[in-house]
């Protein structure tokens, strides 16, 4: 049996998981309209490759990955693209972002799926296929999976940690996935194992999910794999990647380092499942499991198409009439979505019907009494009360000294705070202010370099112009001398010229001749876009010239400057 480690702190909120565990995974019906946001993963925003009016098939590419850390987006069902425009996002800001709106045709017709055997492909090709299939971390962080599948060149990969802990209350989608589709999850883990070549593979599952652990063990055995299924103590946030790595391997990953640098990598079970579907079945990520729970009559897990409006998904669970909002994610880290129309995205693992009965409004914030409860609860051994103090005073330098960027915003500190201070909100505020400042600093630095370069270029151009003028003057003098010689000479003009060239300075004359040729060429070549004009265009052009004259710009001046 594996020797388990412990992380400091953590809390034990009521798990509320049994409600949604009673029913098997159901498939959500096709919605009337799908709004698929293009930016569903960390990194670059995918570029839309469809237009309004296009017919798309299920699984067809609609957003092309932009850069390496970015993942493609696909049509969740067959139908017609109605629009590519801005829609409100499942994001705490409630702001809009670019989405592809699809009207389903009801046939749910797949595009051609190309199953591959990942063992027959080069690792780079597997990673590229995962990117093309839009496989991202489904635990909530939605980091493009292919970006995590490159082992460190210097540090040997020791452990591959598979996260099935699912520590957040209410959420059961990973639990049910492991119970019902353990076989495919294990096969997916096999892909990650083949790419990363770790010494061992550890599947961490919280000990309040014995059925899931049993199903996974059975699947591992049936497939003859050597993965170890480990039951970890139920303690929020054991499902945080850093916490699970700590519990299973004893390694601590600081904010400044990647986990591969410590020879460990972590994936969610749902990610493994989608990776397997993407490669072995050629199915890109177009749906995901979503727990519908909270203030509903029939809590259940649904397989929901990406882009389905959340209100429609929630309706499946028959919410009670006093429902007054939807929380995306769990009660610890989730947030109230701005509108019921926001779509389900790859990060949506749970929808909780919110009501005042279930989540009574928090009593007002009281002053910090420095009791230290938050520091005891913090799983990262930070000092939330100190970070809070300085975040409140907007002293961001100090918050960084107290390692605010190691904070994973798990909400343990807010949970235990006897003064009910929304600590995490202060930390998010401080973090986004620091990021904004860094962006500004970067913009200022680029502006400075560009300004300095422009000045340098202007200086250089000035110098070059002066040089050119000097050369032209010299050439003129040489030409005059040649003409004078030609006028005076009796021999053939060609000979005379040659003779004079030889007499004066052959090099100079050659330069002068070349410059004369270049000048003639320049004069002969008209501006490229002004040839073959029709009458209308010519008239417009004349008008523009007239305007320029009126504005006091001679037509030659700007052209010369851009040379």
């Amino acid at each position, binding site marked *: 049996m594996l020797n388990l480690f412990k992380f400091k702190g953590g809390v034990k909120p009521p798990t509320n998981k049994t409600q949604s565990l009673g029913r098997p995974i159901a498939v959500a019906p096709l919605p009337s309209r799908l709004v698929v946001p293009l930016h569903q993963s960390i990194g670059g925003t995918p570029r839309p490759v469809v237009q309004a009016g296009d017919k798309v098939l299920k699984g067809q590419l609609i957003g092309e990955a932009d850069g390496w850390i970015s993942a493609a987006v696909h049509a969740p069902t067959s139908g017609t693209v109605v629009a590519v425009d801005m829609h409100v996002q499942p994001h705490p800001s409630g702001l809009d972002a670019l989405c592809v709106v699809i009207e389903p045709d009801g046939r749910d017709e797949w595009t051609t799926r190309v199953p591959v055997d990942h063992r027959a492909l080069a690792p780079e090709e597997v990673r590229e296929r995962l990117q093309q299939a839009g496989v991202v971390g489904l635990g909530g962080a939605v980091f493009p999976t292919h970006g995590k599948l490159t082992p460190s060149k210097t540090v040997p990969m020791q452990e591959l940690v598979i996260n099935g802990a699912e520590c957040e209350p209410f959420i059961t989608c990973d639990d049910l996935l492991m119970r019902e589709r353990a076989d495919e999850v294990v096969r997916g883990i096999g892909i990650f194992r083949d790419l990363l070549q770790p010494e061992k593979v550890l599947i961490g599952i919280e000990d309040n999910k014995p059925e899931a652990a049993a199903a996974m063990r059975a699947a591992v055995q049936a497939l003859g794999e050597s993965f170890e299924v480990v039951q970890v103590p139920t303690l929020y946030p054991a499902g945080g990647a850093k916490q699970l790595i700590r519990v299973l391997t004893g390694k601590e990953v600081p904010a400044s380092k990647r986990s591969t640098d410590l020879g460990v990598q972590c994936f969610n079970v749902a990610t493994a499942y989608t990776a397997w579907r993407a490669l072995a079945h050629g199915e890109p990520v177009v749906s995901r499991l979503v727990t519908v729970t909270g203030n509903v009559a029939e809590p259940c897990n649904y397989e929901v198409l990406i882009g389905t409006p959340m209100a429609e998904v929630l309706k499946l669970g028959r919410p009670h009439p006093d429902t007054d909002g939807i929380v995306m994610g769990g009660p610890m880290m989730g947030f109230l979505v701005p509108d019921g129309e926001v779509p389900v995205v790859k990060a949506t693992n749970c929808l909780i019907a919110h009501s005042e009965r279930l989540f009574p409004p928090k009593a007002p914030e009281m*002053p910090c009494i420095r009791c230290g409860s938050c520091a005891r609860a913090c799983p990262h051994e930070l000092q939330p009360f100190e970070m809070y*103090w*300085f975040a*409140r*005073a907007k*002293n961001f330098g*100090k918050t960084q000294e107290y390692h605010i960027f190691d904070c994973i915003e798990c909400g343990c500190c807010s949970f235990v705070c006897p003064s009910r201070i929304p600590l995490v909100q202060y930390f998010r505020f401080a973090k986004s202010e620091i990021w904004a400042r860094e962006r500004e600093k970067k913009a200022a630095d680029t502006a400075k370099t560009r300004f300095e370069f422009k000045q340098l270029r202007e200086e250089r151009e000035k110098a070059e112009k002066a040089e050119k003028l000097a050369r032209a003057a010299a050439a003129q003098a040489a030409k005059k001398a040649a003409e004078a010689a030609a006028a005076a000479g009796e021999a053939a003009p060609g000979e005379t010229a040659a003779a004079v060239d030889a007499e004066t300075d052959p090099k100079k004359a050659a330069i002068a001749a070349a410059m004369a040729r270049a000048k003639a060429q320049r004069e002969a070549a008209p501006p490229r876009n002004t040839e073959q004009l029709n009458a209308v265009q010519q008239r417009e052009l004349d008008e523009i010239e007239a305007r320029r004259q009126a504005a006091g710009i001679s037509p030659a001046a700007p052209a010369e400057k851009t040379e």
Partner: protein
Amino acid sequence: MSHYLFILVGAVLVNNVVLVKILGLCPFMGVSKKLETAYGMGAATTFVLTMATGASYIIDHLLLTPFGLEYLRTLSFIVTIAAIVQLTEMVIAKTSPTLQQTLGIYLPLITTNCAVLGVPLLNIANGHNFVESLLFGAGSAVGFSLVLILFAGIRERIEGADVPTHFRGVAIAMVTAGLMALAFMGFAGLDKYQ
């Protein structure tokens, strides 16, 4: 030997220049908004004050007292201090630009620090010899730095506190300084065996 120790401890804690003698309040209030600047100011003042006590002792004993010009003390000391501050700034600018950057404009401000003038005058009033003068100067400077840094640390935290609107800024800083002075009174008697 213990006599020197008493002078040192007495200058640092018991007769602290800022909180007990109420000298040098200008930089104490002005440069205590941030810990970093407080460190710089403390270091610079320590250097200048020690130098100034030494130099003023020499000037007083070699120049002023022999000629009976004691009434010129204030004038000549100020000139000396100003020159030392200038000199220090130039040397630091040349030798350690990073230190100069951290100290910034606080270096020339030391000239106006009345503790730097007060300590040499107190030296003479107390009849200290050269070593005693230097110890007293250094001790006072350390005492100054100590309370400046403590005070800056407190003020940084006050920034985040719920201070009533009318007390914000210098007002609450004054109250804090008063409380600190009360606390330092607790050191009285520490050197009663002197």
